[in-house]
Structures are given as C-alpha cells and as structure tokens.
C-alpha cells in the first residue's frame, strides 16, 4: 500500500475507534470483526482472503491499529469479535476486565529487529548507535507493544537512547524510516520483511532481543461468536500458521 494510504488509514482508524457492528446473525455466517495489531497487517490480510475462500458465507473485517489502542476500544465496549494482540500484557488487561470468552491463546511469536532506510545511510550497526544524538531515532510509543519491547531490548543492551519521536504505532514508525526521515527504529522482524526491501534490517543479537508473544481470543460480547471461533481455529490451523510463517512469524 502506498505510504500516504498507510499513514492516513492507520491514524484515521486509530481515531475512529469502534469498527462496524456485526450483523447479529448467529449462524456460521455473516460478519466477523477482527481487531488485530498493526504488525499483523500483511499476514492477516492474506489469512482473511484464505479464510473467506474457505468459508464463503463469512465476511471478515480487519481493524488494524496498535494493540494498546485496540485494547482501549474493547474496554470501551467496541463490538469486536476477535482480538489479536502483539503482546500478552494487553490481552491480560482485556481478560482481567472479563471481556475474554474462554482462554486466550498464543498463536505466533515475533522478535525485534532494527529497521533502517534502504542503504543504511547512517551506518547503524547495533543498538549501541541508538545513543547517538546526531541520528534521528524513532520508537513506538511506550504503551504500544513494540515500544515496550523495544525499550526492554535497549535496556538489555545497556543503552540509553536519544529518542526523537514516539510513533503511535509500528506502521507509522516504519513509514517514516522507509521515507528516510528517521535513521533507525526498532520494529518487528516481520515488519522489515513486509516492506519488501523498503527498509533494511539490522540484527539484534539474541541476548539483547525480546520475544513478543502474539495472543488471540474471542471476546465475550462478540456479536458473532460462532464465526469468531471459526476464524480463530483457522489462524491456529496449519493453513493459518503456514501463512504466518511466510511473513516471518515464528510458530509458538
């Protein structure tokens, strides 16, 4: 998707809040509203198509934003069927509020990578460079999973970063890095892959890196619980997991 569209859609969706309501139809038919973390964009788009092909009666709507934003929407009563979060802490907060039906499940894992503009103009080699005040460094906002994880990684590396911007979600961060307006940022491995060469990745060694556990759950107030269940099953199935793997996610 072109840069302009991504930025516009991300922020507009984040601001709009609750997505469209479900049709209320209780058979394995109708609409399913899935709130999914921004980093799942490409993978879940493909999963959506595959799932709809396999279940012609169901129409999936994806509401993509930062997991913390999605959490707030759900807590405020957004009529969401499925929540796919980029970390367990956001899912836990939803669960503690009693909004989760049954159990949340880990369906994928992700690790972090440093993203730099194509060609790595600032010559970033590791997290150590994040302390360099001359570079323009971006992170996800603290409450956003990738922001939280990114700070943990920096902590692990013993680096005090000189941050220039806290972006509202990982896609906004990625967009600015791809445009060359930021010299480096911390995103997920899957994000770097999703840009298809738009940004380059610089490895974060295992001892500094953080594993993000992606969690999925059906919500108690889901307008279409049956279809929601079908969707979650699909994600956990070989087909779904295969798609996740193609986009760089690690199996749980």
């Amino acid at each position, binding site marked *: 998707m072109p*840069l*302009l569209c991504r*930025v*516009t859609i991300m*922020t*507009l969706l984040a601001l709009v809040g609750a997505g469209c309501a479900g049709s209320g139809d209780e058979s394995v038919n109708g609409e399913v509203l899935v709130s999914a973390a921004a980093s799942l964009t490409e993978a879940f788009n493909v999963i959506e198509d595959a799932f709809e092909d396999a279940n012609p009666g169901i129409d999936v709507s994806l509401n993509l934003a*930062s997991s*913390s*934003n999605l*959490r*707030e929407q759900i807590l405020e009563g957004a009529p969401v069927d499925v929540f796919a979060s980029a970390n367990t802490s956001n899912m836990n907060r939803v669960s503690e509020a009693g909004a989760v039906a049954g159990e949340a499940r880990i369906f994928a894992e992700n690790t972090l990578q440093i993203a730099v503009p194509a060609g790595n103009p600032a010559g970033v080699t590791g997290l150590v460079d994040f302390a360099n005040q001359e570079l*323009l460094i*971006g992170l996800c*906002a*603290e*409450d*956003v999973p990738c922001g939280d994880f990114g700070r943990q990684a920096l902590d692990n590396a013993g680096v005090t970063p000189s*941050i*220039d*911007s*806290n*972006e*509202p979600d990982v896609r*906004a961060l990625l967009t*600015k890095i791809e*445009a*060359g*307006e*930021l010299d480096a940022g911390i995103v997920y491995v899957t994000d770097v892959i999703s840009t298809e060469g738009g940004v380059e990745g610089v490895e974060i060694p295992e001892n500094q890196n953080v594993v993000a556990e992606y969690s999925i759950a059906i919500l108690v107030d889901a307008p279409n619980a049956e279809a929601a269940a079908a969707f979650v099953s699909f994600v956990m199935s070989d087909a779904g997991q295969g798609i996740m793997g193609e986009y760089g996610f690690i199996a749980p």
Partner: protein
Amino acid sequence: MSETTARKRAHRPPALLIALGLIGLSVFVIPLVGLLARVPWGNLPELASSPVVIDALRLSVVTSLTATAISAVLGVPLAWVLARTNFPGRSILRALITLPLVLPPVVGGAALLFALGRRGLIGEPLHAATGLVLPFSTWGVVIATTFVAMPFLVITVEGALRNLDPRFEGAASTLGADRWTVMRRITLPLIAPSLLAGLVLTWARAFGEFGATITFAGNLQGRTQTLPLAVFVALESNRDVAVAISLIMVAVSLAVLIALRDRWWRAL
C-alpha cells in the same frame, strides 16, 4: 386573545426553533458533560502538575502563539494581494490557500514531510546546505500548525479588505497619505475587528492541531508532544491523565474565548 398574550406570543420564538436549537446546543454540551463526568477531581492537581502535562502545555502555548504570529506576518500581506490585486491565476492561488482547510490534517503533515523532511524536495538541499532538520523538532510543530491554521487568517482578512469601502483609502491618499500611512492609519484600524477574529480562529486551530503535528513533527515529550498528542498517547496508557489534559485544553480555550467576549465573534 388578549393584547398582553398576543404581545408575549410575538416576542417568544416559535417552539420548533427552540426545540431544534436545544438539540443543536446538546451537540456541544453533551460531550463536554461526558468529559467532566470522568474527571478524577481528587487527583486533578497532582495529575495536572505532572511533567508530561506541564511540558505539553508549555509546548502547546508556545507553538500555537508562534504559529499565530507567523500567520499574521505572512497572512496579512497575502490577504492584501488577494483582495487588492488582479492577476491571472488568482482564483487558483486562493484555492491553494484554502486547501489545508479541506485536507485531512494527516495528509497535510505527510505533504510537509515530503517537502521539508530530510529527504524532502526542499528539505534535502536545505539539510545538505545547512544541516537543518525540521521534522521531529519544535519548529516542525510550528510549521505544521501554521500550515493548517494560516488559511483562517488569510480568508478572514481578505474578506474584510474586500468589504472595506475603497473610498476611505482613496480619501486618505488625496489628503496626502502615502501607501504605508494609508495601510497603517486607515486600512488596518478599519479591519481590526476582523483581524482579531482571524487571529483567534487561527490560534484556536493551531492549539488543537493533531494530525499534521504527529505526522510531520513526530511525538516526543518536551520537544514536540503538544497537548493533543499527549492526550492521544495518554488515552492508551493512563486514562486519568488523558482526561486531565483534556480538561486543561477545554479550560484554556474557554478562558481565551471568554476573555475576548463578543469582540471577535461579531466581526465574523
């Protein structure tokens, strides 16, 4: 019908108008009440004086005032050119100036990034020549807010200049006033109410700007995180802080608008 009843009837507005008016009023009042209902009054002083809030307030005040000042210095001459000169393409120029009013602010911010970012059309040579980086800086906030707010000033002042009877300026020049004196002693004083209205609208727009700021200037406490950005971030982490900041924004805005009373509104 007795005479007094008839007279009372004549002075009271029709019931339908009152009803619709009340509904219209509720559009403004209900969200405000919703906000006030969530305010953690007990913690308010502590929340309002936290560094996040103080930084955001300072940034918002400084950048919105700066943006207003720049809008005035550049906007008044621009309005004058639009109102008083006649050149081909003038209507296109006017449409361009009105564009930021129509575009979603995020689009505006993105456009600024493409133009003035480090890899931007003008930003790149600028950076190469001077090392100047505009995004992710406080000046970036000023630029973003000026971009979205200046059209208000230009439009208000242009309208005022158009409505000004040109004979006043003609009379002044026959009395011996050169162009600057005419501008200073006749034109500007006569459009002063509209100018003030324009400044207030411009400041209000700049104060509340979000999309262009977060897209172009980024989000960093103390440097670019203005009050609207702080609310956005706080909504996801600390609801109470978000509500406190929202309350501060409402309070500041109300204070300014009430202080001006009707003086600026009448000129619109």
